[in-house]
């Protein structure tokens, strides 16, 4: 009973403490133009990705969707009535591509695919990292050594090269592309979470919890994990952009499942054939990649600044 009253007394104070923390974070957030710009771009690209199917017909990228013109009265010779390589202007703000598709619409269509693949990879990598990283840190000994040696092997190959090898074997589909990038990505999170949990494990509060008889799993997930979450969130935010860079690079290298597919890297790749004749086809999709990746990098950087206790007060 006395225990309960004690917590009741402590609770309001903790709440105000947490509220003050939050208010301080908001002040820091407003003072930091970098993180504001980053969050505007990141939120903007996510919202645009979510709205994309309302703004643009999602089947627009398929050739069958273009108006067909019948030649020689034979369905086999039906060609799209197209407006190819229209330069940027009033009708098409960013011009049209080699198939006569509006580049702006293609870019709006490409955004959700990029964001979806990127988020899938980052979230799965973080989950794998949480499981294996905390297992390594908590079990220690041989399990730790084994997990570390496996990550060593992955760190010894540049991610892009490993992804190329995997794609050679797996075959070109979007799923395989996601798997290939994920396989190159998870070791970072294992190392990050392992080191975080290791440093938290030695703190006095863990010892105190252990002395009250709390189980290891309870300590790990209810007490250690919340304290390691900030570096992981920063890493995930930064990685959303980096993953987009990596798999669009794979698309560029020729591992695209379909050259018509609206994906930002794929659009750049398509534009490369016309780099000296229709440069807008490569300039605008590439700029979009830069802006989206820059947005998430700014946001991640800013979150780190706002949450870094050394910069506080």
């Amino acid at each position, binding site marked *: 009973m006395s225990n309960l009253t004690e917590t009741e007394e402590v609770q309001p104070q903790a709440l105000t403490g947490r509220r003050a923390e939050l208010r301080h974070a908001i002040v820091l957030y407003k003072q930091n133009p970098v993180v504001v710009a980053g969050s505007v771009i990141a939120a903007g690209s996510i919202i645009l990705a979510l709205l994309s199917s309302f703004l643009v017909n999602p089947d627009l990228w398929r050739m069958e969707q273009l108006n067909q013109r019948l030649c020689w009265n034979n369905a086999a010779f039906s060609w799209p009535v197209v407006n190819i390589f229209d330069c940027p202007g009033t009708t098409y703000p960013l011009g049209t591509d080699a198939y006569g598709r509006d580049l702006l619409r293609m870019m709006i269509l490409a955004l959700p695919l990029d964001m979806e693949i990127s988020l899938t990879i980052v979230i799965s990598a973080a989950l794998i990292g949480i499981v294996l990283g905390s297992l390594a840190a908590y079990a220690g000994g041989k399990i730790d050594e084994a997990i570390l040696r496996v990550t060593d092997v992955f760190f010894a190959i540049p991610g892009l090269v490993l992804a190329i*090898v995997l794609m050679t074997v797996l075959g070109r589909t979007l799923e395989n592309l996601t798997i290939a990038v994920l396989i190159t990505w998870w070791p970072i999170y294992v190392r990050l979470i392992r080191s975080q949990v290791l440093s938290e494990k030695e703190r006095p509060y863990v010892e105190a919890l252990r002395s009250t008889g709390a189980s290891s799993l309870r300590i790990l997930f209810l007490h250690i994990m919340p304290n390691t979450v900030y570096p992981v969130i920063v890493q995930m935010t930064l990685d959303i952009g980096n993953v987009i860079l990596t798999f669009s690079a794979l698309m560029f290298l020729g591992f695209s499942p379909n050259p018509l597919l609206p994906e930002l890297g794929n659009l750049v790749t398509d534009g490369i054939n016309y780099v000296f004749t229709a440069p807008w086809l490569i300039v605008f999709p590439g700029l979009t990649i830069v802006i989206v990746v*820059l947005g998430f990098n*700014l946001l991640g950087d800013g979150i780190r600044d706002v949450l870094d206790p050394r910069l506080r007060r």
Partner: protein
Amino acid sequence: MAHLKLYEYALRRLFLLIFVLFAISLIVFYLARGALPPEYSLAPYITPRMTDPQKLQLAQSLGVASASCPSYQAFSSHDPQCSAPLWGQYVDWLRLVAQGNWGYSELPGLAGTAKTWDVFSGRFPFTAQLAIGASIVTFAIAFPMGIISATRNNKLPDHASRIASLVGYSLPIYWFGYMLQILFVLYLAIGGRGLLQGSGSLATQCAICFNSPGTISTFTGMTVLDSLLSGNFPYFWDSFLATVLPIIALSLATLSSLTRIVRSSMMEALRQDYILLARSKGLRERIVVYRHALRNAMLPAITVSGFIFATLLGGVVLTETVFAYPGIGQAIVFASLVVDINFLELYVLVTAAILVITNLCVDMIYAVLDPRIRY
């Protein structure tokens, strides 16, 4: 943990290098042989005009097909009778590789005529000169920029370099390469023909150059260095120009990340008490920054050089593809498209060895520079 001597630690790490190389070769081998049709694993060893019985005999002698395999047709159509166990294939493959036999390259235009090892070692110096050039650019620019950024914290130079490094970090290398090409070819043609000369640097005797600069003798295989050593300055200028744009594109990402790291470690060092002491002694600011702060700020920057090398070795794949530069990075894309397993395997193993040895050297340098570090 017991304190190891430095050389004991180095030996332990070298042992780990062997383990890592074995693990990588196993992974790539099992992936390739397990998932791809059996003909692919035989392809590097077949020469043109081989008859089917000869191919079957070859497959059996290489351990790819089992001894009970009736015919080459059965082998290529996945007959279960023909499947030799994968570990046995691995042992046989390893024996060949230990003898230096990587089979024939299947890169386009070379199929069955050039040895994989020769193709690789002929292309490697080109990549090496790109990577070395890019590391020189990275270190030469990142340190001054990081230091200026840290000493003029929150002033205009700091904001400019921070934004520049963030943008540089977010640029797709391949896209930036093409932007450079558009810029230098369409808008800024320097010397009448632009800086775009990727493939001209392949031949030792430059026949396709605009005004043939003659021949050079081979010392290192790196054209820029070799032409300088043989005293052929027109050739040097040509091959130097051919590397300028690729090096700019390649060093962009590493340059930006190193600048950020130098800045943050410099700022951390400038906050320390010994800096306050040095300033209160009345030392000049230049000495405080360059002698007291920089030496300590160097350490974190050195630790990331392993990471920088990894980024460069991944980046060469994109840069060389963009600029049609005849290095191994361009070749691995070709190798992947024609499924040349041995080339991929060779590339991955050499890259991994370079990376692990770089990281080992970095740790050694770190231990020598910082007496507090014990292993």
